[in-house]
């Protein structure tokens, strides 16, 4: 097989490089991984790290749901343990998993490849970012065994400055994690500005990169505010300096302003890369050019800008002025628009396509369904009068899980399945892939849709005890959580299995037109044997299925019609 696979760079059968030199076997030994500056290896290490966090946070979630099977006291845990559980579930999922999630794992792996580049702009900074993550995670873990925090992941004062749990250590961990996030953002911004290949103008950039770029901007601008806020919190706890605690002359609501000034944009740190993944997948699996490229690209930037102006909608009942609430409510509705635009553009991309229901595409459909609910239930919470009723109830819990899980995690899973063959050179079982996607979809809806109903009936969140009237909802939700957990075990099982037994993956199993599909699976250490030239990233129709290699190859240029 030589020369016949045009467009697959000639790496073995169909562009698979498992038996040859690739980034996984280029150097060997633990040291070669721990000190690597290869963005692909750092991406894989991040992937292992954040999936471990996801597993830990998931265990806490299952324990919480198990306690909530009964409305009263539970032999499983006391009220204090329950408070620690939901705090750790939130803190781990947010700071260790969702925020770094897509950018640090998939982004690190794919971004330079999509640019046809050899690496990110600052490979050492990239590795430093990973070790800051490890440091932050270590502090968080130490705080867990030395008096786990019971403040909620939001650390609201004056509760957080008066509780006797180990708030300082946990907050220090989050502070360090912030640097990890800033480093990644900085690296990606510079990489996208400086390392784009010939032919890739801003508006010929894959939309995943727009998503990552928007996220990186927010990471750089918003994360320092969180850092300063957390330092002030530590100063108040450790030194008794009155900033937030009214007993010391401070203002507790000020903390909420500071905290949400970061943490609301952080929601978009989580969702923008997810939207980028969906933009890639929907085009490739509809076998069609993305619809409305510039609207999707610009809506990412619109979201990034508007995300800084809506933090006050977390405080509609906290006692901010009516005028502030009015302005924040209006801006909140405005930030909904770019998301709606994206959804319509994705649907239009499917129109008249050739829709391939492979596992990644099932996650796209799942995303549209779940993120649709997540986004639309945001309208209830943006409307001031309705928010007053729903604030701090299970309705809000359900809403942000539909956005964070139904949006970000589902897109992450879609992206993971999409890039998995590229990362490890093996295909997973398509049959089990679809079963896994279905289990997650069913489990997720069972868990969280019930919480909308419970919440609108007034069930307060973060509650160890609850009224009998909510028991049926809680039980259904718990059953859903078990289905969801089982779904993840299935996914973990077939993905791990594929690493050893999976069919060797061709260079381009899905027919993507972005540059990462022009190199072998897995890619060589230097990414590309020959630097590829960037064209239209959504010209997927230039690739045709080749049954012999089980993947896509570039079409021969169509012969020019003879002039009459």
């Amino acid at each position, binding site marked *: 097989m030589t020369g016949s696979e045009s467009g697959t760079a000639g790496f073995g059968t169909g562009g698979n490089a498992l038996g040859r030199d690739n980034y996984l076997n280029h150097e060997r030994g633990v040291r070669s991984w721990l000190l690597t500056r290869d963005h692909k290896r750092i991406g894989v290490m991040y992937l292992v790290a954040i999936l471990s966090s996801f597993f830990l946070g998931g265990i806490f979630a299952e324990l919480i749901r198990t306690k909530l099977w009964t409305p009263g006291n539970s032999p499983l845990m006391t*009220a*204090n343990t329950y*408070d620690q559980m939901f705090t750790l579930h939130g803190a781990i999922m947010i700071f260790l998993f969702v925020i770094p999630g897509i950018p640090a794992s998939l982004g690190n792996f794919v971004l330079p490849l999509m640019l046809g580049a050899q690496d990110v702009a600052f490979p050492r900074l990239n590795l430093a970012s990973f070790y800051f993550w490890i440091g932050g995670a270590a502090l968080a873990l130490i705080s867990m065994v030395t008096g786990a925090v019971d403040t909620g992941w939001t650390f609201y004062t*004056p*509760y957080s400055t*008066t509780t006797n749990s180990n708030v300082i250590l946990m907050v220090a961990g989050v502070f360090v994690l912030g640097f990890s996030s800033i480093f990644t953002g900085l690296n990606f911004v510079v990489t996208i500005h400086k390392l784009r290949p010939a032919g890739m103008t801003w508006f010929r950039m894959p939309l995943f990169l727009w998503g990552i770029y928007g996220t990186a901007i927010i990471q750089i601008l918003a994360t320092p505010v969180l850092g300063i806020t957390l330092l002030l919190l530590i100063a108040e706890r450790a030194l008794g300096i009155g900033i937030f605690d009214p007993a010391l002359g401070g203002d507790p*609501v000020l903390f909420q302003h500071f905290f949400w000034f970061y943490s609301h944009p952080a929601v978009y740190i989580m969702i923008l890369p997810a939207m980028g993944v969906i933009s890639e997948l929907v085009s490739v699996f509809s*076998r*069609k050019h*993305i*619809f*409305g490229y*510039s*609207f999707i690209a610009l809506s990412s930037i619109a979201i990034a800008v508007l995300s800084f102006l809506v933090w006050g909608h977390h405080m509609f*009942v906290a*006692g901010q002025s009516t005028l502030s*609430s009015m302005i924040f*409510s209006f801006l909140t*509705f*405005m930030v*909904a628009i770019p998301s*709606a635009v994206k959804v*319509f553009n994705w*649907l239009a991309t*499917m*129109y008249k*396509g*050739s*829709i*391939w*229901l492979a596992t990644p595409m099932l996650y796209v*459909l799942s995303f*549209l*369904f779940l993120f*649709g609910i997540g986004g*639309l239930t945001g*309208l*209830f919470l*943006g*409307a*001031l*009068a*309705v*928010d*007053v*009723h729903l*604030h*701090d109830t299970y309705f809000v819990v359900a809403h942000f899980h539909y956005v964070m899980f139904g949006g970000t995690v589902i897109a992450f899973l879609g992206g993971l399945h999409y890039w998995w063959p590229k990362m490890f050179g093996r295909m997973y079982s398509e049959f089990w892939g679809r079963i896994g996607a279905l289990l997650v979809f069913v489990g997720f809806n069972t868990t969280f849709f019930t919480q909308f*109903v419970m919440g*609108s*009936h*007034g069930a*307060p969140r*973060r*509650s*160890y*005890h609850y*009224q009998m009237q909510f028991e049926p909802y809680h039980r259904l939700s718990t059953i859903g959580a078990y289905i969801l957990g089982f779904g993840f075990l299935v996914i973990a099982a077939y993905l791990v299995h594929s690493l050893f037994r999976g069919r060797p993956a061709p260079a381009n199993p899905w027919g993507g037109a972005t540059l990462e599909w022009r190199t072998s699976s897995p890619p060589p250490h230097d990414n590309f044997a020959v630097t590829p030239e960037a064209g239209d990233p959504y010209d997927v*129709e230039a690739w045709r*299925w080749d049954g012999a290699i089980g993947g896509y190859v570039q079409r021969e240029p169509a012969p020019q019609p003879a002039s009459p």
Partner: protein
Amino acid sequence: MTSPGGFWMPVEGSTGAAAVDSVFSLVFWVAAFFFVLIVALMVAFVVRYRRRPGRLDAEASPSHNTPLELTWTLIPIAIVIVIFVWGFKVYLDANTPPANAYEISVTGQKWKWLFTYPNGHVDENLHVPVDTPVLLVMTSEDVIHGFYIPAFRLKRDVVPGRYSKVWFRAVKPGDYQIYCTQYCGTGHSDMWAKVVVHPPGGFERWLEQASNFLKTLPPAEAGQRLAVTRGCAQCHSVDGTAGTGPTWKGLFGSHVPLQGGRVMTADEDYIRNCILDPTKNVPLGFQPVMPTFKGRIRDDEITAIIAYIKSLK
């Protein structure tokens, strides 16, 4: 959807609830419409355009259409502006109490609500007359709490160091649930209380009787109520465990060693002095931290508390 206790919303217990529910209904139908639209298009496209033999490639179709895209940008903008305006209007009404509202003070503390009526009576539940605007002036003793009555669609954080106000007009006599919605520690999910909406005339009768419980209840029982509402129970246990202050169990008649080496018998006069001048005779092993109740408690109330302590053998 606006029917009492429907699939989505609890009963409507106040005038404000009906207004909030109408906004909820509008948003619900808008959201339902767009959700059905998205899912229907998605399913239709998957069925019609799914990849199958003879359909390995997409059909030719444009990759953008600016007028179409502007349409699906502008129509949602118009819709959300309607929702925004209506939501704000109802919110504004809910934040503008009428001038003649009946005022009740609310105190949040770990993990209990206390309601103080204009005549000084303190109660664990919120009693209100039907069809009367009621203004709640709320503050917290410790951390932030959240005052929430689902049936009235009313919620506001209760913040230490400032006062927050909410008002409502209950429309139907009955009991309604109160929750704490701002996480505040161990007993957060136990911070339950009731709103009791009285029929016309009933509230005045209740308040008179409740304020008069010293005359109507046996003294020890009246003393027990006072111990709770006046906050004695925060520091003085009744089961023998030591708190910030000495336990009341078995206190009466015992010999109390004091700071400075003296010993006194805990009789009526000793207890009375402790309430009115708490730092004078501080028992050994305790700090002089109890605030004086001089001027804040009447003689008949002291008598009732003494009767209660006597009963705790």
